[in-house]
């Protein structure tokens, strides 16, 4: 029993890491209609940006800012110079998916000669191991959960209470109508890429902190889990992504406790497939999956 409570705690950490990433990913899809399969690679690049700053002696929690900036910049450039031109050309959804795949391939393989194939680690003080009623967490891990919670609250605040947030939601719902109402959708979209890019960057750093070591190959690993969480919650729904992340994180760790741990990822994905069968639009989506093809 103790193992399951501990697994619950571990699941919370996983969920926090996934949530930060999944919210950014799903907002990119919801507002700009782009399934950005290069997201995992941007996380990885941001993780390395923070790594080099960290190596220069900066505390990792401060270096996280470098990661966020790197993520924001790379995502913005990706959208500006690759995705938008193709979208303007009228490329359909699948074409864009394939393009983002090609971009992820290129980013990963351009990073390889630069940083090498070996893994890298942050210099981080994990802090004390705290035990409480079966939960087993270090101070740093609790800090990660807190960071995730703060960011989720910030996104909530942004979307609900600010003009920018309202403009984002309007653009997501109906871009043409939004434009007609005077919302500068192009500018909103650029800001969205900057904000979600920053989220992506923070997620990359946090993932690196969580896993002790990371490498270029980590990017692809992140992507599948993030997609699972985002789709689970309903693509385009930030709150859905948070719930999806929680579910994936908890299920993964609890199944590792209950059954053979080498299948833990498989169980999470199987949940995803199950949801897609039973409720293809995800947990929270109102539209989305059931829209007309193409």
């Amino acid at each position, binding site marked *: 029993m*103790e*193992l399951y409570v*501990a*697994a619950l705690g*571990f699941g919370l*950490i*996983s969920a926090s*890491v996934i949530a930060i990433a999944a919210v950014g990913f799903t907002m990119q899809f919801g507002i700009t209609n782009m399934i950005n399969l290069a997201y995992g690679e941007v996380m990885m690049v941001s993780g390395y940006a923070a790594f080099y700053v960290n190596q220069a002696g900066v505390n990792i929690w401060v270096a996280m800012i470098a990661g966020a900036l790197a993520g924001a910049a790379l995502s913005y450039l990706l959208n500006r110079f690759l995705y938008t031109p193709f979208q303007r050309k009228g490329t359909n959804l699948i074409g864009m998916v394939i393009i983002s795949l090609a971009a992820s391939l290129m980013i990963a393989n351009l990073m*390889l000669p630069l940083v*090498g*194939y*070996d*893994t890298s*680690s942050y210099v981080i003080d*994990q802090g004390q*191991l705290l035990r409480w009623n079966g939960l*087993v967490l*270090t101070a740093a891990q609790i800090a990660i959960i807190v960071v995730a919670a703060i960011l989720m609250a910030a996104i909530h605040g942004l979307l609900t209470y600010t003009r920018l947030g309202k403009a984002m939601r309007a653009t997501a719902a109906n871009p043409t109508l939004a434009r007609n109402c005077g919302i500068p959708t192009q500018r909103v979209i650029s800001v969205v890429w900057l904000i979600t890019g920053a989220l992506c960057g923070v997620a990359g750093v946090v*993932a690196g902190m*969580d*896993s*002790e*070591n*990371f*490498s270029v*190959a*980590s990017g692809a*690993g*992140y992507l599948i889990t993030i997609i699972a969480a985002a789709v689970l919650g309903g693509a385009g729904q930030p709150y859905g992504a948070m719930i999806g992340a929680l579910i994936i994180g908890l299920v993964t*760790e*609890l199944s*590792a*406790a209950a059954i*053979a*741990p*080498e299948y*833990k*990822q498989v169980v999470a994905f199987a949940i995803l497939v199950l949801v897609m069968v039973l409720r293809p639009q995800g947990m929270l989506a109102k539209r989305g999956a059931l829209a007309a093809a193409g």
Partner: protein
Amino acid sequence: MNRFQPAVRQHLNSTRLLSVIAALVVLAACGGGTSSTGGLGSGPLLVGVLAPFSGADASFGPRYLAGCYAAALSINGAGGVGGRQVSCQQFDTRGEPADAVPAANAMISSNSNLMGVVGCTSDEASTVVPILDRSHIPMTCMTGQSEFNKTTFKYFHRLVPPDSFDAYAMIGSALFGPGHAPYKNIALVFGDDIGSQTFVGPAVAALNKLGVNIAINQAIHLGASSYRTEVQKMLLTHPDVILTETIGSAGTYLGEVKQLNGGKMIPFIGTSATIDPVWFKQVVTAIGLPDFEANYTAVDLALSLQGPGYDEFVTQLTAADSKYSGSQALTYKGKSPTVHLYDGIILDALAMVAANSSDPTVYNPKIFDIANGVPGATVVNTFKDGVAELKAGKSIRYVGAAGENNFNQWNNSQQGYNLVTMDKNGNEVVIGQLTQAQTQQIIDAGGNA
């Protein structure tokens, strides 16, 4: 597909033997003149490094290539093989069999001057070994797969232990190692990948037969971002020791062991592949040097990493590092594959000189003789010395950078195992040895194929 290839087509009768000796004497008398190269042919020679240079195991290729560079420089610095200069070329198998087949075929097709091949890891060995054997190319392979323990491929040579033997040695360390009572409760933590799983089967069989309790047999997915639940599960079985390899994820896993065990580390025993600067760095970063030194042991073939053979290797590796600036050759100074494959290539070259032939069907059997040494052979440690002794008509035994080799009838090189650890700089330090009897007891229990 396992075809016995008659390795020697010609038999040396006494007349030929005399003329060969005469030629060698003439060579010696001429002071190493290059014009009469006997049967060694002319033109450059190529060593193919057939290994993953991309994909999940992309880090393997460069370390093998570095060994080849060092060997080539050592050979060429001593005048080459009968004046023929040796060079190295990489052939990327991408770490999987379907890409390895065209890689091997392309390599053979485009290069008629292949003197040997190194690499062939477990990612691709099953497909490329038959291809290389059919083309009579002597190979020094890195694969630990058990299917090659009794192979009938005559051109296959293995200077590293099969994974099953590593597993037995680790058990030996757990049961008979110095500084602790025999461990009673053993946790096995290995990756689910091809290179890792070859340890688990033999280990489980041996432990069961010996009546030692397996606390948990855990397969983890390498490269995952965390293993906390797995670690917690393992801790709940209260093992005395963890047997592991988990290349790439060892830092993550062991770091979480220390964390979740309240800061107290559990002893852990690694395979020979863990004796590696990268593994060292990952784990030390995760658990700190004191805990590493107090709790880590590993097993290794008696790899000496000292002596004149190793010195020559380091000299040439340093030269290679500056000549081929992108290769980072010097970072592989302590890496077992680099050292072993260097020896493999030197063996190939010495075999060619000893047989005075560039025909692999003639010189391939010589590799065995030079590695094991015939009675009365002179021990040499470098290619240069080897050539000199051969010119003087002696038979030689090459004891190289990695020390002695002892091929058995299946061209697998075995000798005793050392129990080792790494010092604070990541250098290998021998702390004990398993006796022949101890090793045999475990091998018998494991029922090695």
